[in-house]
């Protein structure tokens, strides 16, 4: 088993724990431990054990978004859902990315990177409007 395949099982277990809480931790840990012998190397097993050890932490509900994160999420969502011409949407997305970085600049050091990261997808969608893979789709020609 590749480590990437193990990560798929781990990610599914993680989501189940996030939905179902602490009762789902022990079965998930056992399910994943049983896969360890199938991994291809001791290094993969080391990483896999570290992933298993993280599972109990997912039973704790994540902290709600801070006001600054909420503000950034709102800006990102509005830009993504914006309607208009291609040029208008490019301008909206670029402005939203700048706005989110400004919000991040006001955030504590441990929170700012996560806020900035909201622009990773927005940046790509904006780039695709500027330079589309399928030009006929986004300029109406």
């Amino acid at each position, binding site marked *: 088993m590749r480590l990437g395949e193990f990560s798929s099982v781990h990610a599914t277990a993680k989501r189940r724990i996030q939905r179902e809480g602490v009762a789902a931790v022990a079965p998930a840990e056992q399910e994943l431990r049983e896969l360890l012998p199938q991994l291809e190397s001791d290094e993969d097993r080391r990483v896999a054990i570290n992933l298993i050890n993280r599972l109990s932490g997912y039973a704790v509900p994540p902290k709600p978004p801070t006001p600054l994160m909420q503000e950034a999420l709102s800006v990102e969502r509005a830009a993504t*859902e914006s*309607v208009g*011409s291609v040029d208008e949407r490019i301008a909206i997305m670029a402005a939203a990315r700048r706005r989110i970085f400004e919000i991040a600049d006001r955030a504590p050091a441990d929170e700012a990177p996560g806020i900035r990261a909201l622009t*990773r997808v927005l*940046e790509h*969608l904006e*780039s695709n409007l500027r330079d589309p893979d399928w030009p006929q789709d986004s300029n*109406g020609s």
Partner: protein
Amino acid sequence: MAVVRINPSSEEYRRFVHLYEVARALRPSKIDRWNRELYATVGEADCWGSLQPDGSFKFSKELVFDKLGDHATPQERVQALTTVLHESNHARVQIDAADEPNAVRSRHSKSLDEGLTEWISVDDVAMFADRAGYGELPDPPAAYPAAYHAANSLLEYPAGADAARRTADRAIDAPVVMRWDVITDEIVKNKLADVVPRDPQHQQAARAELINAMTQLSWGHLDTSQPIVGPVVARDTTRALDNATQRVRDHYTKSPSTPYPTKTASAVSQPHDPGAEMRVLTGLAPAAQAPLSMPELGDRARTDAAHGRVSSSRRGSPNRFGRPVVREP
């Protein structure tokens, strides 16, 4: 802002190659779109970077390259690594898929590509970081862009949350234009296997109808760039897929041996449920209609597509591809 080529003998280049190789080992692929050219943007503080159409990678010095070194907080580092993993995942698949009748060639496939790639990359970054020698890093905050939520909604639709990652693993391996087809294949397998015959013609027709459920009305709004992802789209996608699934089921209940009569482009102006589909379809891919103005992908264009581009010079040429919807009732 300046763009600087990273010298292949530099520490930054070697560090990136190591990360790229780890990413590819974790998720192997025969496709490798990186041309081994690496660039840094310097002083462009609000761009993370991307895989360029020519096959090169370009990343922010401040947000990515500097944060992969020794002077970064754990959260800065995990976001830099997520960016590298996200872009590496883009490089391992083709964009186009020649002669596939259910290919969706529109910006909406790009949106699903982005949401799916971010979804997978956030899932895998802890493993990626540890395997690459960065140790155990904290999870990124549980706050995601709209495209992530839209992808999550689609991935959970066929068989629930526990099967979402399996669907994602299949979809991320498919060419960008075929991700919709993979997801609808999971829907057919999980929700319609009792009525849709296993014959490929029936399967393709059923998938096409489900794709069209997410695509129809945006064709009427080509003069504007419509929203393409988001919570409203995610919610209404479920409703549109419920309706389309029921249409396929109703058809095969009545006519089990006749392939689903998917609509032609001219028939899509009458939505089955305007309230739901108007919102969905302004957002998602016009699979049925895409070939109407799709570039002809001859050999040259296929070469372009292999490098991540469809030649704009061929815009509007008659298409040689089958449409995802080809049969009249």
